[in-house]
């Protein structure tokens, strides 16, 4: 649904690798996780705890809390508020989180 503009390479533009549910995806250093995933064709990032409906990032500014994902094992992280780093492990948030001991 989203893609990247073809832009000239600027110095300092680094690519990083994300690991999304086991799959390797490419991202631009400085992207938020939500932006990087949208650019890689992500449709839904979670299902709601109330009805299991699919949801995706909506506001990109930390207001809507739709972009909640499991980041490095921590559930319900707002993906638009997290900058990508190399090797970041990400999963979709399925319903309510569980509590690991």
């Amino acid at each position, binding site marked *: 649904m989203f893609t990247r*503009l073809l832009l000239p390479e600027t110095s300092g533009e680094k690519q990083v690798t994300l690991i999304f549910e086991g799959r390797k995806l490419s991202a631009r250093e400085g992207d938020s996780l939500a932006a990087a995933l949208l650019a890689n064709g992500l449709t839904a990032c979670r299902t709601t705890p109330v009805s299991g409906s*699919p*949801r995706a990032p909506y506001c990109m500014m930390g*207001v809507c809390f739709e972009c909640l994902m499991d980041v490095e094992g921590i559930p*319900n992280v707002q993906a638009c508020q997290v900058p990508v780093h190399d090797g970041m492990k990400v999963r979709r948030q399925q319903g309510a989180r569980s509590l690991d001991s």
Partner: protein
Amino acid sequence: MTPHDLVILGAGPAGMAAAITAAKYGIRPVVIDEQPTPGGQIYRSVESTPILDPKVLGEDYWDGKSLVEALRDGTIDYRPGTSVWQLTPQRKIGSLQGDSVSMLHARYVILATGAMERPFPIPGWTLPGVMTAGSAQILLKSSGVIPESPVVLAGSGPLLLLLAVQYLRAGVPIAALLETTSRGQYRQALPWLPKALRNLATLTKGLGLINELRQSGVRHVRNVSALHAEGDSSLNRVSWQCEGSREWQQLETSNLLLHQGVVPNTQMTRALGCHHNWDSRQLAWHPRRDDWLVTDIENIAVAGDSGGIIGAAASALEGRLAGLGAAIALGNINNSDASIRSEEKKVRRQLDKETSVRPFLDILYRPAAKWRLPINDTIVCRCEEVRAGEIREIAAMGCQGPNQAKSFTRCGMGPCQGRMCGLTVSEILSDANQQSMEETGYYRLRPPLKPITLGQLAKASENKK
């Protein structure tokens, strides 16, 4: 806890300008902002945007650069990547950076938390693929990310037009711009045009955008009177009706960008217990402030869009005024000093001129009731999936206000803390009960205003900075 003289929440134009002004008068302000880089939303990523061609984003965007450079010149204690989960009337601030909680105390606080999109609840708005125009601008500015399929833009307001033009300049195909501004609004706004002419620059820019849009030949549908987003697990189609016709038109798309103006982000002022007036021109809540921008609460001021929508340039001017006010209140400068009084006069004059365009724009793009009072089947509280019909049902049973509505339906109890539904729920209740918005009220808010874990909260009393 040794108090800081001045703490500013928000590093958008108002926050940055307030800090720069206060620093001029010998204060070392602390600026706390949750984004990793400064600029707020309007100047987001101005230091690092991958869109280097200045024509794409437009000249107003690049105005932010000088503010950001001044913010970083060493006189200001700038703390990015830090969220504020609590602010008390005694000006005790709870902040969180990474995993570390800090408590600060300030003698004076300036809130510059900006604006957020007005909710635009239409059937299907929760489907993946439906986003806000503001979010699309952030994707563009910060990451050079654009919609893939021809995108549909819908709603009204200057930001929507700006985005459309930015997309055109960047070569992004637009399937249609569905405008909800109705015919009557041009007529209603006209009496405000003479006043608006004082800010000719803004009007001219606006006309320029409209012209650029027209010349591009993009399909521009006017007087849209109904709008639906459709799809199973994600958006695949947008349907609409126009005023005066019962025919439903459709477009297949997997990207819909909604926008019907921005409203002040009043989470902080609400949690403080400040009094808010309902502004019927902007159809939004404004915290009550005196002429130094101070709220009902001593030494807590609000500058910029979070006090009432005025735009980026005016926000910076309010920031300057608030910074000046802080320096006077803290005793660094004296208001009887001639140079200070003349500075104050200058800023007020510029602010007056800059905001003269507001009434015209506010009325022209004010969303009609049908766009703020959705049909029963529409989800109003996205977090808890409460529909408009449920709110109307309990109103019929005697529920008069949003806090009762919250306790009976769970609306407003989700993680967004009412940011996405607060306005809509109050408006539905006001309409159903035939009571004013002020009589109806708004959600009662309490900390934490931003997510904080129990473990982090448990350590809150330990770290005082």
